[in-house]
């Protein structure tokens, strides 16, 4: 009896993976999935988006996986193109947001007053719904890719800044930083050599976890008509256009693009969580 149990134990151990290996596996598959999505969108040429009026309003079939729209365009290709646009917006906006967060969090170490001002700014931005400021900024900048990216960048920095600020605060009170000050090192030197390496893993995880937010907000903005211009292939545009056709029973126009967007968001979330699990195993236990 007991022999059997032990046998089973060793058998299972051979074919199961530990937490770290699982995290690595999930992260890698998400990267593959996302690169597949984006590569599909980039390499499918515009000829696949040609208008074909003989082929209008087809429900999903093998030939057109996601069906076709009222102009006979293949919805699968449109969705991929839209996701690629979302990805581009995501990269630009998340990168900008992360840079803002990094700059501000390093600034908090300068002086207590500056720290208070930045904390106040964080609270201010977090207390107002994103979408309101987002619409405001994007509209003021005239919409389009630039407007959306800047709007997203200026609304998504607070939560990451708060994380990084806490990290800076903790490092700042470390004995080795106080010693560094007594050794005559400038603030800039300390920020570059003591704080920055401490922040990099948090920054990377924060950057990836910003994607889902940014992408969803971009879609929302485009859906409402304040974001990307209508001729650009974006999920928000596709969704808002499909609204007019839903009542005629063409459910696939909204269903598949929406589902794909959701999948992309979930993929980024999984990627971020598992990267964190790999980089910062201690925090994951909490």
């Amino acid at each position, binding site marked *: 009896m007991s022999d059997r149990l032990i046998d089973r134990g060793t058998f299972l151990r051979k074919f199961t993976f530990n937490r770290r290996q699982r995290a690595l596996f999930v992260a890698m598959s998400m990267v593959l999935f996302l690169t597949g999505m984006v590569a599909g969108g980039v390499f499918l040429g515009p000829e696949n988006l040609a208008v074909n009026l003989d082929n209008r309003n087809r429900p999903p079939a093998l030939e057109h996986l996601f069906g076709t729209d009222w102009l006979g365009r293949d919805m699968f290709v449109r969705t991929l193109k839209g996701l690629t646009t979302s990805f581009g917006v995501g990269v630009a906006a998340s990168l900008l947001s992360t840079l803002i967060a990094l700059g501000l969090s390093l600034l908090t170490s300068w002086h207590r007053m500056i720290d208070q001002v930045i904390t106040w700014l964080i609270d201010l931005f977090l207390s107002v719904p994103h979408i309101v400021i987002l619409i405001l900024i994007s509209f003021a900048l005239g919409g389009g890719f630039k407007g959306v990216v800047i709007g997203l960048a200026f609304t998504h920095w607070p939560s990451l800044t708060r994380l990084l600020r806490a990290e800076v605060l903790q490092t700042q009170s470390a*004995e*080795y930083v*106080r*010693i560094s000050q*007594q*050794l005559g090192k*400038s603030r800039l030197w300390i920020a570059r*050599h003591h704080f920055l390496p401490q922040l990099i893993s948090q920054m990377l995880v924060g950057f990836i976890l910003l994607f889902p937010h940014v992408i969803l907000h971009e879609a929302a903005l485009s859906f409402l008509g304040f974001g990307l211009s209508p001729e650009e292939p974006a999920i928000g545009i596709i969704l808002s256009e499909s609204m007019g056709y839903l009542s005629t029973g063409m459910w696939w126009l909204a269903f598949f693009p929406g589902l794909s967007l959701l999948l992309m968001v979930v993929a980024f979330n999984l990627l971020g969580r598992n990267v964190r699990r790999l980089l910062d195993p201690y925090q994951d236990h909490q």
Partner: protein
Amino acid sequence: MLEACGIGYRYRGKMWLFRDINMRIQPGEIVGLFGPSGSGKTTLAKVMAGYLRPVEGYIVVDGQTSTDRYPFLKRRKLSLTKEKKKGPNPVQLIWQHPENAVNPRWRMSKTLAEAGVTDRHLLHTLGIHDEWLIRRPHELSGGELQRFCLARSLGPQTKYLIADEMTTMLDALTQAQIWHALLHIVKQRQIGLLVISHDKHLLHRISDRLINLNALAAQSAAQSLD
């Protein structure tokens, strides 16, 4: 000469920890400081080394007061440590826990480079092996790390050294080795050394003179009553 002139310190909203403390350390002199736990030895060390700004009084290092070096400090109530821009402090402090005093992400060579310590001879005197330089702090023992902390604080600008319970966490053998090396360097370079410890035997053995912090505080209190 490292002088403390009428130093007083209190943590915000607390009682005075000590007041009107006067103390002098000559170059090359080894002074032992002792006192019961909680009497403010470490705080005094931090004040003397510039980590904390005294609430009263001032520190004079070789004729320069802290406010001479940083005249704007008088006007703006900023802490001394935050406004330092003029290179390493000639007064360096050795902390009790070396594992907290080095950046855990750095190799030891970078920790030394931070202080501008390049003197191979100094490292050898302190018993630092060359192969330790490429290691990270968690790959070294407490005694080995403390040697690095000593080396780091013995940069060319250092004139005075304050050792706050420097070897309390170490075993007797390491303790002896480190003190031997340090005393040698201190004599050679005429560095003034303030040793803070609970270990009376150690203090008697190495110090030129001893100071009891409680007696010092009581003395100044009595003077102020007169």
